[in-house]
């Protein structure tokens, strides 16, 4: 089973992600959240105080509480005032944060929820896919990124709490979500809509780069790749059935059912955010992914010898 790793950076920990915003699409919600949490605590205290007075208070105080007037004030008038303010605030934020059509020049990425991983497809200005990845989304800091959220099978929900609220990925629809990170770093997320089986193990990371580093990363990804020298690992990959589901650019592996592995060696995690990515975990995943992530769509490949597994892991880890 997965061990403790640097996944801590991915999701969870202190402070609570919802209250620790990292960009302009989560920050206003955090402010609202604090207002609601503190306001809610104050109102709870008021109601408890009223209940306490009703039960133990001085007769004069109790008399004030015990009539239709108190009910109208406490049950209607006070809530109407508070709720009107909150409603307007909430509505205004809703309209403000909801993603509409792409802005000119805006970076666009299509993220497709699949059972139980994320297909990531970077689009050009015209909306055509230019590069493929999985379970990891690279963005530059300080600018908005428009996400087009699709589903390939059942309903999933895309949620990176430090960057934005969640948005469902629904078959037959395309929802839009805008995010922006203001600091470089890794921001974790997890599928939030129950999608069966190992829904619990469907993690995700947004990696935010400085503009220069993002440019380098992008250029590296888009550069034509020299064909990798033939290796034992590659041969095994192409002859053992792996290529039926996975694509590795520059080889004959063109399967589309599973994640694109062209850059698998550079990903931070394995199995959609559940394992650190290294040769050891790669080998373990190939041999026995059903123990690591029960129910996932990749069968166990127990037929490989230790030597073969090592060769495959070497090959995959080298796909940077």
């Amino acid at each position: 089973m997965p061990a403790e790793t640097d996944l801590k950076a991915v999701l969870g920990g202190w402070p609570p992600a919802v209250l620790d915003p990292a960009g302009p699409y989560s920050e206003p919600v955090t402010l609202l959240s604090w207002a609601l949490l503190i306001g809610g605590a104050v109102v709870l205290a008021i109601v408890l105080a009223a209940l306490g007075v009703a039960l133990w208070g001085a007769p004069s105080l109790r008399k004030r509480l015990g009539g239709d007037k108190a009910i109208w004030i406490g049950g209607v008038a006070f809530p109407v005032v508070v709720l009107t303010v909150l409603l307007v605030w909430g509505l205004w934020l809703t309209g403000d944060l909801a993603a509409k059509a792409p802005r000119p020049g805006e970076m666009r990425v299509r993220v497709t929820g699949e059972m139980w991983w994320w297909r990531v497809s970077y689009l050009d200005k015209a909306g055509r896919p230019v590069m493929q990845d999985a379970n990891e989304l690279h963005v530059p800091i300080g600018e908005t990124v428009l996400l087009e959220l699709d589903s390939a099978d059942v309903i999933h929900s895309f949620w990176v709490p430090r960057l934005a609220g969640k948005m469902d990925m629904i078959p037959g629809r395309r929802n839009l979500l805008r995010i922006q990170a203001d600091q470089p770093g890794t921001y974790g997320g997890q599928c939030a809509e129950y999608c069966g089986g190992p829904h619990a193990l469907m993690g995700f990371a947004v990696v935010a780069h400085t503009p220069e580093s993002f440019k380098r990363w992008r250029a590296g990804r888009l550069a034509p790749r020299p064909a990798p020298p033939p290796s034992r690992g590659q041969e095994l990959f192409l002859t053992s059935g792996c290529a039926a589901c996975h694509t590795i650019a520059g080889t004959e592996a063109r399967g589309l059912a599973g994640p694109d592995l062209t850059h698998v060696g550079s990903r931070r995690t394995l199995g959609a955010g559940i394992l650190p990515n290294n040769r050891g975990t790669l080998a373990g995943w190939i041999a026995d992914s059903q123990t690591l992530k029960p129910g996932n769509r990749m069968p166990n490949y127990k037929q490989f010898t230790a030597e073969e597994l090592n060769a495959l892991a070497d090959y995959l880890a080298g796909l940077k």
Partner: protein
Amino acid sequence: MKTWAILLGGLLVWTTHFFGLYAIAEIAPSRWITVLLTVPCLGVDAFLLLRGRRLEVRDTFAGWRRSIALGGVALSLVAVCWQALPPWFAGTE
């Protein structure tokens, strides 16, 4: 029937308003169409409020009926006003 109409009048206005707004949002989202719905609903509520105040209170039942009617209109007024806000603050897209 008359008693039920008196008791439920305000809330029936709310129902009309809410489902009307939902239909507008689904079919033809537009601020001004929502106004065309909201204004008459507020008007009917105001009318019910005035009429309700004039309802007689000749026995406990009639008094009770009047309270429920007026309370229902009051809640309806608040809710209809709140429901009128989204087109203006959240936008119509």
